[in-house]
Each structure stands twice: as structure tokens, then as C-alpha cells.
């Protein structure tokens, strides 16, 4: 099992981390997610070939990210209740370098995920729908809404 894990880790960690950064907009959070994904997936990796492993890890990452979003919402609620404070959003720092990335980072989570899976991972609506637990028609509408907002960045 350790060999399977190590092989998967070496083959997929960078690709997975890049995807995680696009989802979360923040490198440390992305690193934690990727770390958790490998730890959680370790018992299943032996049954899968290279492509299946990639697909499996990607799905595990989407699931881990959905959890992260959920926990962050609960924590934010708590923080607001007991100690309102400025939140340092790492995506703000990146914003200065790339206006489009900043606009993508501001999209609601599900829209951002749909955009990343469509334009970075090049997945079909059907594949994205399976990953996000919704119907393909919803993926299309999420991407459409997102593009309408992102259009404002490229508009002269």
C-alpha cells in the first residue's frame, strides 16, 4: 500500500495541487487539501491504473474542497458572532497580478469550480455535473453566469 501511495503521490501531486489552488485561491489551504486527499485515498489507490487514479484523486479533491467550503462557512459564522475581524484573503494579493484571476477568485464557489473544471481540466458538462453533484444543465447555467461576470474584465 505504501508503494501505491508513493507512486500516486509522485505522479499526481503537482497536478492536484494546481487544481486545488485554482479551487481555493490560497496555497496553504490547497496544500492541506491535497495532503488530506492522499491520506484518505491511500487504501484505494492499489486497484487503479494511472488515469483512474487521476480521476479518483480529482474527485476526492472536489469532495475535500466541498467539505472545506462547508467548514469555512460554519467558522465564518462563528467568527462573526464572537469577534468580527478583517479577513485576509490571499486572493486579494494575487489580484494585483492578474485581474482575470482576481475576478475568478471572487466567483461564488460552485461557479468557480465549474469554470475551473471546464477551462482548466477541460471536462465535459456531464463529467463536471457528476463531480459537483448536480445536473449538466446546472453546470451550463453556472458557467454561463460566471462568464457573464468575467466578461466585464475583458470589456475595453
Amino acid at each position, binding site marked *: 500500500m505504501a508503494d501505491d501511495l508513493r507512486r500516486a503521490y509522485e505522479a499526481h501531486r503537482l497536478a492536484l495541487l494546481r487544481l486545488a489552488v485554482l479551487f481555493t485561491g490560497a496555497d496553504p489551504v490547497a496544500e492541506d487539501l491535497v495532503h488530506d486527499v492522499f491520506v484518505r485515498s491511500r487504501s484505494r489507490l492499489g486497484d487503479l491504473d494511472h488515469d483512474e487514479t487521476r480521476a479518483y484523486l480529482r474527485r476526492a479533491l472536489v469532495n475535500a474542497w466541498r467539505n472545506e467550503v462547508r467548514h469555512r462557512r460554519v467558522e465564518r459564522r*462563528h467568527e462573526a458572532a464572537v469577534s468580527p475581524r478583517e479577513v485576509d484573503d490571499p486572493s486579494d494579493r494575487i489580484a494585483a497580478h492578474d485581474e482575470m484571476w482576481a475576478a475568478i477568485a471572487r466567483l461564488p464557489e460552485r461557479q468557480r469550480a465549474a469554470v*475551473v473544471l471546464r477551462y482548466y481540466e477541460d471536462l465535459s458538462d456531464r463529467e463536471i455535473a457528476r463531480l459537483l*453533484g448536480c445536473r449538466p444543465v446546472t453546470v451550463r447555467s453556472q458557467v454561463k453566469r460566471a462568464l457573464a461576470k468575467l466578461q466585464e474584465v475583458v470589456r475595453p
Partner: protein
Amino acid sequence: MSVEEVVRESLRRRAELVQSLDRWADVRDAESLPPLSAPTRSRLAAVAVAIAVLIPAGLLAFAALRPSAGESPGGPTPGGGGHTQESRTDAPIEVTSPALNANVSSPVVIEGTADVFEGNVRIRIFDAINNMIVDTFTTATCGSGCRGEFSAEIEFAVAEEQQGEIVVFEESAETGKPRNVVRIPVILVPGENLERAMEFIGTWTDGEGNAYTEAELSASLGPEHCSWGDIVFLSIAEPRYGSGPVTFVRDTTNELADHTERAWESLPLLLGDLTSDGTHVGDWELWFDPSNPRTVYLRHGVTGETEVWPALTQQIGCD
């Protein structure tokens, strides 16, 4: 260059900034740990504390939950917030989406601009009989004297189409009372998640086609008023669980994260050494992992899609 090309290029450039991650040692060392790593577990513990603190506060605040008469009867108030279709641009809160009387299903995206204390924008959703089915907040990109944008994607569950209301407001920093209230009447429509959840509510039968009694095996939806309306609770009291029934949950939004040992997951295919005795509802087959009785797998007989449902760690309820 089309917007799609710019998006593609931007994502590629951002991804390529990420060069390396060398925490193999952490992963290797964690091999002997349970599925969740230490940082995640401590985060869960923090959330559990957060919820424990919030519950009493929530109960106390219940009387003032719904911004009501005197705050903004029947719609946006002068000097208060407004919907863009009928408001001035200097209203402290403006909601641009959803539109008045729009059909909305979960997740609904609520967007607008606000100039409120520290950018904190509260959002509540009420159903046709005035039950508060969502109480949350989001943060505008700017606040306390400058105008920022806000956008929140909010999940909710209703069993049938009905009139509802989205209420967006600022909580007064001094008194905690709602102010600058914006009300958006909408039609709440059951979401896709609920449609899928309904596939599990029906007659469960064993491998020979005999229906289970409710005491043996039954599935039901949670109560709507605690946002559990699209969570499926599957109670199984078969001999394999000896001492008493075990309840597994289809909790796609992790509402019950503090009451389960792992999260709900969706897999492209069934993996591992699992067994089934033919128990099913519609096209969904029930599979077990003999090495882990705290998880069941629901596999769709046609598409092969598989969902992983965790067991509740304790019986739970909501008032």
C-alpha cells in the same frame, strides 16, 4: 481574444505558479492514522466548539430573527436598502439578484452591493409559512464607509414549490437589531438535490423482492426547518447491526459534519471488497463494506454511480 480564452490563459498561468509540494514525509507518517489527518481533525473540533457556542446565542436571538414591522413593513424602506429595480444607488444594501418574484432553487446565488459595518451582510430565507429556513451571512468586498460587492451561494430545501422571501440586512453593531432591510419575495422551488434524495424515499425491498418493514429498514427526509429537508436518513436494524438500528445519512452539504465520522462522497464506480444482498430501492442498490460497518454504499444499477453514506455517531434531533 474571447473571454473563454482569457479565462483559460489566466487559470493556466496561475496554476503554473505552483511549482512544488514536498510533504511526502507528512503523507507517509500519516499512513497509520485514521482517514482524517490531524489538521483536519483539529479543524473539526474547532467547528464543534463553534456550534456549541452558537446554539444558545441562536436561541436567545430567536425572538428578533425576522426583521419585521417597524423595520421595513412590506418592502424596502426609505433610507433603508432596496432592490435595484426600485431603489436609489445610495441605499446601504442593494440586491441585484435574484429578481423580485423570481423562481429560485437551491443553491440560490444572492448578489448585490453594500456599504455596511465591516461589510457584514446577513441573509435569511423564509418559507410560505414564515419558517426561517436559512440564516447566514456573507461579506462584502468593502465595508464601514465604502461600498463593496457581495455574492453568496446559498443552499436551502423545500419539499414543494411555494412563496418565500429572501431578507438581506445589516445587523446594527450597537444593538444587534436588523437595519437597512431589503426584502425580495421569491418563489422557492425544490432543487435537484431534493429530487435525487426523493429517489431513496420509497419501498425498499430485499433480494427476493420482499418489502422491508419500517422497523427493519426505512428511509426518510429530515425536517425542513433545520435545513435538513434534503438529507436522507436511512435506518437499518438488520441482524448485522445486532444491538439496535444504525442510521446512515445522505448529507451532500455536510450539514451533519459534526455527527458523522466521514463525509458523504460521490464516486464514479464501486471500489473495494464490498458485498450486497440485493437490497434496493428503485435502481439504487445497497452495498456494505464488511470491514467497515459504519459506512454504506448506494450504487445506481444503470449508471454505476456510487454514493458513500456515513453512519450517524449518535441520534440527533432538532426543535
